[in-house]
């Protein structure tokens, strides 16, 4: 029996890209769950029209909370492998094959996407911020990773069940890594393509967000 692969896409005000993202995933025969995180635009309708299972947070909670809701739905729908995917069009569905194969062959329970394992054009300000995040992760968790804040990840079902994220906003990325280190889950990294467009850059995280993430990490459980 083929494993059921489900993609969870948290989306906040992504009406411009969500349709294309969902189509890209469906073309690769992946079932899609979009969590509209209280968007003010037509994200919900676009996602629904594109054929995704679409959930809606009635108010904006943050990416971490949206991911958690989506993962919960994916587990309820019987997903065997759960992939997290960005709604802003930065990720490629064609990378998912590489992402899920270590789980299918039982080499790892978690696969983390890494933009640094592949030739990617990364703007310098992002490069600097990402490298700082990598150092922070190495310092706080001991994990030696090449990319710590990549939206593309894959989890086996039993890890997804045990994950239970408490960080509602952007600190969830670090929280996931912390839990990997704590629970000693097996993981590998897989190269992924990241397309930086003016749109995705405007939606992305800047240096100031880094401080907000640290605040959440230190002062929220």
């Amino acid at each position: 029996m083929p494993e059921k692969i489900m993609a969870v896409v948290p989306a906040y005000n992504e009406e411009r890209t969500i349709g294309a993202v969902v189509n890209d995933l469906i073309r690769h025969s992946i079932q899609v769950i979009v969590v509209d995180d209280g968007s003010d635009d037509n994200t919900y309708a676009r996602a629904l029209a594109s054929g995704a299972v679409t959930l809606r947070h009635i108010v904006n909670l943050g990416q971490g909370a949206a991911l958690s809701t989506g993962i919960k739905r994916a587990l309820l729908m019987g997903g065997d492998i759960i992939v997290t995917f960005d709604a802003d069009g930065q990720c490629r569905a064609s990378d998912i094959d590489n992402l899920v194969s270590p789980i299918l062959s039982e080499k790892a329970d978690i696969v983390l996407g890494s933009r640094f394992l592949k030739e990617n054009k990364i703007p310098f300000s992002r490069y600097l911020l990402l490298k700082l995040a990598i150092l922070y992760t190495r310092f706080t968790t001991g994990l030696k990773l090449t990319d710590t804040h990549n939206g593309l990840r894959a989890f086996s079902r039993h890890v997804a069940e045990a994950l239970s994220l408490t960080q509602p906003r952007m600190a969830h990325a670090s929280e996931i890594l912390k839990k990997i280190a704590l629970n000693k889950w097996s993981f590998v990294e897989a190269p992924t393509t990241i397309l930086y467009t003016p749109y995705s850059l405007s939606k992305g995280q800047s240096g100031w967000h880094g401080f907000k993430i640290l605040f959440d990490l230190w002062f929220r459980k």
Partner: protein
Amino acid sequence: MSRIQIVLIIVIALMLMRVWLRYRSGVIVKSQFLWWAALWLSGGLVVVKPETVNRLADALGVGRGADVVIYGTIVLLFFLNFKLFSKLVKIENDIIKIVRELALKSQDDKRETE
């Protein structure tokens, strides 16, 4: 009595009245009422008889009575701020639970009607 004392006494009297009204209308419970009343009353005592804190200041080795009040107030504010922050995190977590439940629930409804 100096002018500042009169102003502060009026302010404290108003605050005490507020606390009393909040208690009477059921917004705060008895223990909260007693805490806030004690806080404002001790403030009133310091305003009317500043020498009481001078004695405290001497006992603690702080120069002036007014400084003791300021230090104490800062500690109290930090404590209240921490309590408020913890409360906000709890409320946020509760909201997340509610919103998540609603999102998952409305999906179930949709599946049943399909």
